[in-house]
């Protein structure tokens, strides 16, 4: 073997491929172990975490070393073998996927045991492994065929995972909807590749379907636009961009929580990867308004996503809508980067791209953490409705603390990681006055204001999520016997929480590590750190312009808190515990607490015009006086407007068409013979 082929096996691509093989292997072996379910869970999730660890190593290596490796497998079509390729962009997404899947696989060891004795989990184990393998293959794929096969493996595996508890009608409905939207998206992606491949080499050969050929091709603007719009539509459907998001809040909550964590945390990121790959790498040059499209859809998704999240009372549904928001934020970064690229401002483009990608990594970690936390709550209480919850912080100390870290991170509060990416994005936005177009000069800062609105609303949303779930008293009638998450679950969550903290406190290391991605895609790096103790200061443009040090914020707050605590506890003060002050009425009960609906009421009223809200209050008077009603019924329904505006007409239209077409089916043999006859005549006339 020559050195090159050895390198192929031992280099980053070899490591990641072996991770994929390991995942396939455990999926294959799982049915053999189905008689000892407990062992199956331990073994297969351990091997999944081992595979993820390999993936992390390969990914970090590929980005850190700036390697580009390719591998051609002798599989696939005769003229089109499977092409695999790892470059820093792919390596970055592999790292993101594997970081989360490592934590989630450890978590699953504990979480899936909750199904023991209730239902066999073999199917879940098989599709979990296939799902991970599918995601990694999507990122590695270097030709359209392999990409779409991997895309389908990922989609189909996640479909079966959503369907896991298939006795419930909501699961079947959600999975069906998910399948439809995923396939409409896949068709669009296929067509987009078709356009690019056809213009690369013509439609006669398969050579055009490799990504290399697409990179080489010079597409005329009209066809490039068509390819971009198709790809954006397809990937946006997968990423849950509003208005293509309706499947997401249905499918993510009903899947088992470890799967929800992966679907929200990293599966959406494969779509982000697709958008970046197609625009920055495959097409390469584009007009500014493509970026504007991405930016505008990003803004709509961010603001609407968080507003819908605020309105939810189902904890996992809230998290799912919040994923829509975060995908929006990532797209804001990518869209801004595209705008800057098209105006030849590589530094700004690099900054915005880093911000978007960094947020992709952050969102994977904190959303994974939050879904794992929600899974622990579900595991412990069998409850997803926040209106029933409360006071769990006393019974689930670990879960509460870790969920809180997730909430702080996602609300973009320093010194955690969500803040870093939003701060970078603001810095990119602040530089927008350098843009030549006056319209953009004004619109981009307005976009930043919307981003600030999103951040603040997210904080409100997660005060609600944490406060209603974990604080106060239990709101339901009977408090179930709640137990804390076991150690494997805790370990998974602790690792994710630590990653959130490290990504927030030491961002310069990670940004220096991933700086090669913008260098390859937009042509320059941002070199985030500067001066002495450079790692301490995040200064993406210049130290005078703006700087941030997560480390000092973290240590500074910690120092003051500890110092004040010590000063105040030199003299041992006493703490008295007493019942809640009830203003002398004496009949305070847990139903009088603020609940989830009440918490979001002011925001619901202010932004109510964006929703389809039906609110009814019914008073049952007691005797004659209406002032002292016997009973009060409150009815509230909040719906997504996009369902009625966008989906219902399409559904109705397709039913209408199928009814019309259905008339052809007469059930009489004579009619069918006439159809055949007419067809033959038509063919004879037209195809000579």
């Amino acid at each position: 073997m020559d050195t090159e082929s050895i390198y192929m096996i031992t280099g980053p691509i070899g490591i990641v491929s072996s991770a994929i093989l390991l995942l396939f292997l455990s999926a294959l072996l799982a049915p053999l172990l189905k008689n000892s379910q407990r062992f199956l869970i331990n073994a297969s999730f351990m091997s999944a975490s081992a595979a993820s660890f390999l993936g992390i190593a390969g990914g970090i290596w590929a980005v850190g070393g700036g390697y580009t490796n390719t591998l051609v497998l002798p599989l696939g079509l005769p003229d089109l073998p499977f092409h695999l390729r790892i470059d820093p962009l792919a390596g970055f997404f592999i790292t993101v996927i594997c970081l989360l899947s490592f934590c989630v696989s450890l978590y699953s060891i504990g979480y899936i045991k909750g199904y023991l004795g209730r239902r066999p989990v073999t199917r879940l184990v098989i599709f979990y492994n296939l799902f991970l393998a599918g995601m990694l293959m999507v990122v590695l794929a270097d030709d359209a065929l392999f990409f779409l096969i991997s895309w389908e493996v990922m989609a189909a595996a996640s479909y079966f995972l959503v369907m896991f508890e298939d006795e419930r009608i909501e699961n079947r409905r959600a999975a069906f909807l998910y399948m439809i939207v995923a396939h409409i998206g896949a068709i669009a992606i296929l067509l987009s590749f078709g356009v690019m491949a056809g213009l690369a080499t013509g439609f006669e050969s398969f050579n055009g379907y490799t990504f290399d050929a697409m990179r080489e091709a010079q597409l005329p603007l009209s066809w490039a636009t068509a390819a971009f719009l198709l790809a954006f539509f397809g990937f946006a459907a997968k990423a849950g961009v509003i208005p293509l998001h309706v499947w997401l809040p249905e499918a993510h909550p009903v899947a088992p929580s470890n799967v929800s964590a992966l679907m929200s945390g990293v599966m959406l990121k494969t779509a982000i990867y697709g958008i970046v790959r197609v625009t920055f790498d495959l097409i390469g040059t584009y007009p500014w308004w493509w970026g504007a499209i991405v930016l505008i859809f990003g803004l709509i998704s961010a603001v609407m996503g968080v507003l819908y999240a605020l309105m939810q009372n189902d904890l996992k549904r809230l998290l799912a809508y919040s994923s829509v928001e975060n995908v929006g934020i990532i797209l804001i970064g990518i869209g801004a980067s595209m705008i800057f690229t098209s105006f030849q401002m590589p530094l700004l483009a690099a900054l915005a791209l880093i911000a978007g990608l960094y947020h992709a990594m952050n969102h994977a970690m904190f959303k994974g953490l939050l879904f794992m936390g929600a899974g622990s709550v579900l595991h412990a209480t069998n409850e997803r409705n926040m209106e029933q919850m409360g006071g769990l912080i006393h019974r689930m100390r670990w879960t509460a603390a870790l969920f809180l870290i997730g909430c702080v991170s996602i609300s973009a509060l320093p010194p955690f990681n969500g803040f870093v990416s939003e701060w970078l994005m603001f810095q990119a936005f602040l530089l927008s006055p350098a843009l030549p177009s006056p319209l953009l000069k004004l619109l981009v800062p307005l976009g930043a204001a919307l981003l600030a609105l999103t951040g603040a609303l997210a904080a409100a949303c997660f005060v609600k999520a944490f406060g209603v779930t974990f604080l106060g008293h239990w709101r339901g009638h009977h408090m179930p016997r709640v137990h804390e998450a076991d150690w494997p679950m805790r370990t998974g969550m602790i690792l994710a929480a630590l990653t959130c903290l490290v990504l927030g406190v030491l961002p310069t290391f990670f940004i220096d590590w991933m700086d090669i991605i913008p260098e390859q895609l937009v042509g320059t790096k941002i070199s985030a750190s500067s001066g002495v103790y450079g790692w301490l200061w995040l200064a993406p443009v210049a130290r005078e312009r703006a700087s941030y040090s997560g480390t000092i914020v973290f240590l500074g707050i910690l120092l003051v808190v500890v110092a004040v605590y010590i000063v105040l506890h030199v003299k041992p003060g006493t703490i008295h515990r007493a019942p809640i002050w009830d203003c002398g009425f004496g009949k305070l009960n847990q139903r009088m607490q603020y609940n989830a609906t009440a918490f979001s009421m002011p925001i619901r009223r202010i932004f109510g015009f964006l929703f389809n809200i039906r609110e009814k209050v019914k008073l049952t008077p007691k005797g004659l006086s209406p002032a002292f009603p016997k009973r009060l019924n409150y009815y509230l329904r909040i719906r997504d407007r996009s369902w009625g505006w966008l989906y219902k007409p399409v559904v109705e239209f397709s039913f209408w068409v199928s009814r019309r077409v259905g008339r052809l089916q007469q059930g009489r043999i004579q009619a069918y013979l006439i159809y055949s006859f007419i067809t033959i005549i038509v063919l004879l006339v037209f195809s000579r």
Partner: protein
Amino acid sequence: MKLYKFIIEFLQVAILLGIAPAFMGWVRMLKCWSQGRTSAGLFQPYRDIIKLFSKDVLLADNASWIFRFTPYLVFGTVVLAGGIIPMLSLELPIASTADVIVLVGLFAIARFFTALAGMDIGTAFGGMGSSREMTIASLAEPAMLMAIFTVSLASKSTSLSQMVHVVYSGQSVLRPSLAFALFAFVLIALAETGRIPVDNPATHLELTMIHEAMILEYSGRHLALIEWANMMKLVLFIMLGAAVFAPWGIAQTGDLTAILAAFLIMLLKLAAVGFVLVIIETGLAKMRIFRLTEFLGSAFLLATLGMLSFFILE
């Protein structure tokens, strides 16, 4: 030299800690006078804080660690912010820890945890306060950012010391965009620090409280820390506004006379702003909560107008 800078840094934080209650006393004193009441004097807030520190803590039965941790965290973030905003000198060693956006983030942490603490006990008041506070914050933050953007257009920086430098080096001229931004900033600062017409710091009437509702259950040293942090937050917002819109007086060098002059000018600024604050608070009534949308919306609009005028005129 390095050590000297740190001494200045500590001096600034110490002055902030010391002066914040006096400023609160000043505002209350002026308010009493303007309403024809006898005031409790400039030093009453000190007596309040000392009294609270010496009292025992009374906790509700189901208060969790969040409730006990929040006062320390709120105090910590405000003190850290006090080390970053240039009040006396530009030569602060940790000034580049944070630009204005990070400062907004620091105040947001304090708010986030205060809101959680409000929900911890499980009374209706606490939840109501948290819900309202987060609503107001979510409207105020975009407006705040827009105002910051407008100002940073001129100085091409969001770092506070850089903004001050730009003014000192004479590169800045009087701009109409700054006037708009200042007006917007005043409205937002009133909302963020919980003053009339957004919130009434003196009320304990259940339907009008916002901030007070969240901290209603606190007592003893916990309450002392929160009250003290609030007083500092008011001073810090004024100092933030001063650094952005009227930085004259802040020492550029580290020598002692300049610092002393900076301190005296700072006192003058605080006294003047206190006067204006009292005029606003006496002249206006507290707004209904759903009128605040218009109030904060107009702040946003003003900041946007400021930005427009910058682009049109430059």
